Structures are given as C-alpha cells and as structure tokens.
C-alpha cells in the first residue's frame, strides 16, 4: 500500500509559498538574521527552533511586516512583500503575549479583523461562531480576556488569527505560557486545526519536543542562521553538525580522529583505547578530527561483554536519571568520557539490574552513531 507522503520540498515542480532570498536583518551593527535563503511550502507546518535571541521572532516579524529586511527579499506566492504594509498582507500572527484587546469581549476580539474587511454583519457572525466552535470557546464568547484562563486566552488568540483565513499563520511561541499537559493537548489541537483549515503555519518555539511533535519540517537556528531545516526524523537521526545533534534531544558526543577502514571509519577517541566503528556517507580524510554523536536509546547496557558488538566499552555507572518510563544511565569510561544509555523501565524499580558504581558494558552498532565533521 502506498501512501502519498507530504514532502513538497522534495518536488522541484512545486512552487514554494514563501521564499527568503539572501535575507539579512541588522539592528544597528547587530546582525539578527544573517544572509538566509530558504523556502516554506503551502500547507506546511514549519517550525523555527533555537535558543533565545537567535532571531526567531525577527524572522516572524519580517513575515508579518513589522520589520523590513535590511538586504534581500521575501516572496509570498512569488510576490515581493517588502512594500506591503502589515494590514494589507494575507498573513496573520498570533503574538507571543497573545495581544488580546482587553476592552473587547472574546467575540469582538475574534470579529476584530473581519470587521476591518467590511464583511456583512451576518457573515461576520457566522465566521466568529465557526471559530468559536473550532477552538471550543462557545461558552466564553461574552467574557473579557481577563475573565478567562491562560489556556482559553491562547485559544482566543489562535481563533482571532485564524478568523481571516490567512494564507500564512505565524505563531510566536504560542504555547509558552501553558503547563505541560495543556501544552500537549494544544499541540495536537493545533495540528488538527492546521489539517482542517489547510493554512500554512510557521511556528516559533524554543522547545524542541514541541517542534518535533507538530512540524512537518524543523529549522534549527543559531545566531541568525538556519543551521539545518529538515523533517523532525531527519533532524533527529541525521543532524548535519554537532550543534544540531546537541540541541535536539539527548546525545553523547565523542571527539576523535577518523581513519577509513572497509566501508566505515575507525575512530580513535583516546590514547591506548580500542577504536570505535561508525559508517557514514560523508567522507573524512585520514586523521581528520570528527565527532561521533550517539543517541542514548541506541546504546545497550549489559553486565557482560556482548558478543559481536561493533562497539563495546566498559565503564562505571556515575548517575541514574529516572524519568518514569525511561532511565538514563550516565556511564563513565576510564578515560573520563561519559556516555549516556537510555533504557525503558519495563521492570519494577526494585528489580532493576544496575545501580550506582556498578561496572557495566555499553554497546552500539556501526550505524547507531552519526559521524560529524569537526
């Protein structure tokens, strides 16, 4: 059975909805966005992920029209948007602070944008009702923003920005203020709404789990640059540099020198220790500095040396992080290198095999680690 996968970025015939072309944004001498070119496709759920201050909001504000690129152009459906003021763009933004109008009821907040378009009164009412239903806010229509909870406010902000059926919806850290449970529910709600409305979403977040959950593609940013933009699975499994590997999820990074051998590389990571093995489609020169990134869940922990493992090292358990469903073991090798191993807690706590100070073997396959350039 074949299922059509949503991957317009792989199809050269599809025209992107948004194109950044060598966009640079400076504030005085400070470079907030550094010569970026990338595309976002219609109906995508595109996530911008990065630490605070890396330029995520600036990127959104340029799309919304509150900032102009210092250099370069941004095209929306093939048209340069620089001369179009924010109130004339088919783009709506859900603000980080929600920016709900405190003097207007929930109903009037949602209707605000529609009224500006001089729609007929009953058409406005119908659209507002539709939005209230979509965001399950019917009961709160008459309340003022200060009379509803944080989660409801967030839904009002979403409904308000969706009401005008924009081509592009910008969400700036939309779930930042919510607690974990509500956050998760809302993430699924967002994905649901995105699917129902077919709107293109660009979401900003500094929470990698959130980006991975909701997005069709994730762009990992640092210092005004997109380091890697790819599907969540590829970002996780095939990071293109140490920064991305380190930023997304838990990872052990081992620095060493690569030497070609067979169809992979031997990695010498410490004096007098046996080399590690990894395969990769990148090519390294002999003796080139490299980093091996290994996800903890791909490292097996055993009491005895495992038979035939491509990589096996012995160490002492330094720390155990109990996460409920999972436990992460921090194992220290004699060289001082710490490797993390994560295993599912299928047994009860009292019957767990390993404890602090135990000497254990860690093993992983040739393909488990990702070999990255220095």
């Amino acid at each position: 059975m074949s299922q059509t996968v949503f991957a317009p970025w792989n199809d050269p015939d599809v025209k992107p909805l948004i194109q950044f072309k060598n966009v640079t944004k400076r504030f005085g001498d400070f470079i907030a966005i550094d010569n970026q070119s990338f595309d976002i496709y219609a109906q995508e759920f595109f996530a911008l992920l990065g630490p605070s201050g890396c330029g995520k909001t600036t990127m959104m504000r340029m799309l919304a029209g509150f900032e102009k690129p210092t250099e370069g152009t941004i095209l929306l459906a093939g048209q340069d948007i620089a001369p179009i003021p924010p109130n004339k763009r088919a783009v709506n933004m859900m603000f980080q602070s929600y920016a709900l109008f405190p003097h207007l009821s929930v109903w009037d907040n949602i209707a605000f944008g529609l009224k500006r378009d001089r729609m007929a009164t009953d058409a406005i009412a119908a659209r507002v009702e539709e939005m209230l239903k979509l965001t399950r806010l019917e009961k709160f229509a008459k309340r003022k923003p200060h009379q509803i909870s944080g989660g409801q406010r967030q839904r009002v902000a979403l409904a308000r920005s969706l009401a005008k059926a924009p081509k592009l919806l910008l969400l700036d850290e939309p779930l930042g203020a919510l607690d974990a449970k509500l956050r998760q529910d809302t993430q699924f709600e967002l994905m649901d709404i995105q699917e129902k409305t077919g709107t293109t979403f660009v979401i900003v977040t500094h929470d990698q789990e959130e980006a991975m959950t909701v997005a069709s593609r994730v762009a990992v940013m640092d210092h005004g640059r997109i380091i890697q933009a790819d599907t969540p699975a590829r970002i996780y499994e095939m990071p293109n540099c140490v920064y991305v590997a380190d930023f997304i999820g838990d990872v052990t990074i081992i620095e060493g020198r690569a030497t070609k051998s067979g169809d992979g590389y031997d990695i010498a990571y410490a004096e007098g220790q046996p080399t590690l093995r990894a395969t990769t489609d990148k090519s390294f020169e002999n003796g080139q500095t490299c980093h091996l990134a290994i996800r903890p869940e791909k490292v097996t922990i055993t009491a005895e040396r495992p038979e035939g493992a491509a990589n096996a090292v012995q160490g002492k358990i330094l720390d155990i992080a109990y996460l409920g469903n999972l436990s992460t073991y921090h194992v220290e090798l004699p060289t001082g290198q710490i490797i993390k191993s994560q295993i599912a807690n299928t047994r009860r706590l009292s019957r767990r095999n390993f404890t602090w100070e135990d000497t254990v073997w860690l093993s992983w396959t040739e393909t488990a680690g990702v070999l990255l350039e220095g």
Partner: protein
Amino acid sequence: MRRFALIAVPYFWLLALFLVPFLIVLKISLSDIALAIPPYTPTLDFSAGWEGFKAFLGALDLENFEFLTTDDLYWKAYLSSLQIAFIATVATLIVGYPIAYGMANAPDHWRPTLMMLVILPFWTSFLIRVYAWVGILSTEGYLNQFLLGIGVISEPLTILNTNTAVYIGIVYTYLPFMILPIYSALERLDASLLEAAEDLGCSRITAFWLVTVPLSKNGIIAGCFLVFIPTIGEFVIPSLLGGSKTLMIGKVLWEEFFNNRDWPVASAVAVILLLILIIPIILFQRNEQKQREADG
C-alpha cells in the same frame, strides 16, 4: 483595636478638616446677616444651656437659599461656571492628549525629563503664573507685540479680560492634571496590541481610535474630572484674566464675602456649589474604582 485605630485616623481627619468646616458653613448659610462680629446671627451661646440651644435652632431658616432663587445672577453664575468648566475641560483634553501621547511614545531615557517639565510649573506660585499671563495677553503684552512684529495682525487683539483669557488660564493651569492620568494610561498600553490591530487589517489611524483611545479611556475620564471639578469653583483665574462679563460662581462667592460682607448668602452659595460638585466627584470616584477593579 489596632484596626479601629487605623481606621479612626483618616476618619478623624475627614471629620476635623471637612465635616466640621462644612457644618459651620452650613450653619452660617442658615443664619441671618447682622452688623456684628461675626456678621451673622444667631451665634451659639453655651451659657444659656438647653433653652438657649433651642432658641438658637429656632432662629435658623432657609431664607438665604430662597434669596438665591429670587436673583437670577446666582443660577446664571452656576450655569456659566459649568459651561466654562466644560469648555475648558474639552480644550485641556485637546491640548493634553497629544502631549501625553508624545510623552508615552518618547524614548525611555527622555520620559523622566518630560515628566519633570510637566510638573515644573507647580514649583512656582500659582498666583504669579496667572499674573504672568496678564503680561502676555494684555493689549501691549508680549503676544500682541510678537504678532504685530511679525505682521500677522495690524491691530492688537483684545484677549485679556475676555472669556478666551480665562480659557487660556485654565488650560495652562490645569494641563498637568490632564496629562498625568492620560500619560499613565498610555504608558501601560502594550505596544503589541497596536501591532495586533495592524496585523488584523487596521491602518495606524484606525488602530489609534479602536485600541489606543478606548484603552486610555479611564485616564481621559480621570483627567477630565480633575480639571472640571476644581474649575467650576475657580476664582483666581476669572478675577485676574476674566472681564466684567465673565460670570463664575467662585467670583460671586468672593464678592458676597468680601464686598458685601454677606456671610450667610455667601455660605448658601458655597453649600449649593458643593452639592453641584458632589455629582461629578461621585462619578470620578466610581471611575477610579472601576479602574482599580480592572487592574486588580
């Protein structure tokens, strides 16, 4: 007990500084004019005991209030005061709002300086500042000299001793009372609300009317009352800058007291003025209360 003491202090304060003087004025307004010191009768004679007190009460009557209705000077003065106060309040709002708006949108490091400039006039005597306007507005004053000098006018303008001069004086004097509450409302305004309004299709001007103005409404109301209430009873400005045709109740009151030495009628005028002021004062308090509830 401590709670009681805490509450008792402000109540005692109000009693001593507001209620007691008011009762004295009320009592005088019910008395009759007399050629004596003090210039009214009856006065309470404690040595006469209970009988004396009854006689004292018996001598009080509403004659002065009836008198106020017989002469149309009084109700005309009240009405004219309300009208002048209203027009002056609107004028102060028109001048004050843009200043407050400019201050709230000025760079952060400028704001304390601008704030000081607004408050600065309070550090000099009110009387001197109003007198200064006499020098500016008179026929040979600086304003006329300047306008004649640059050739805008060929005849000096008559501004002093007209209602225009009174309006100028009131706007000038009460401007800070208008600016400060509006400024504090505008300063708290979240700039992202204006961006949200623009994002949803408003032009800058519509965003101003639909977001900035409603959200500074409480500041506007507070500012208007702070100007309107004291302006109704204003005396110094109309007597220094106004003309013979400027009719304000504060001036009438002063003349009753000091020119006619008719304390009972003057007191009756004051009591009615107070009753008129109670309405806007209550409205003002309710606005403040609403504001506090919205903030809290």
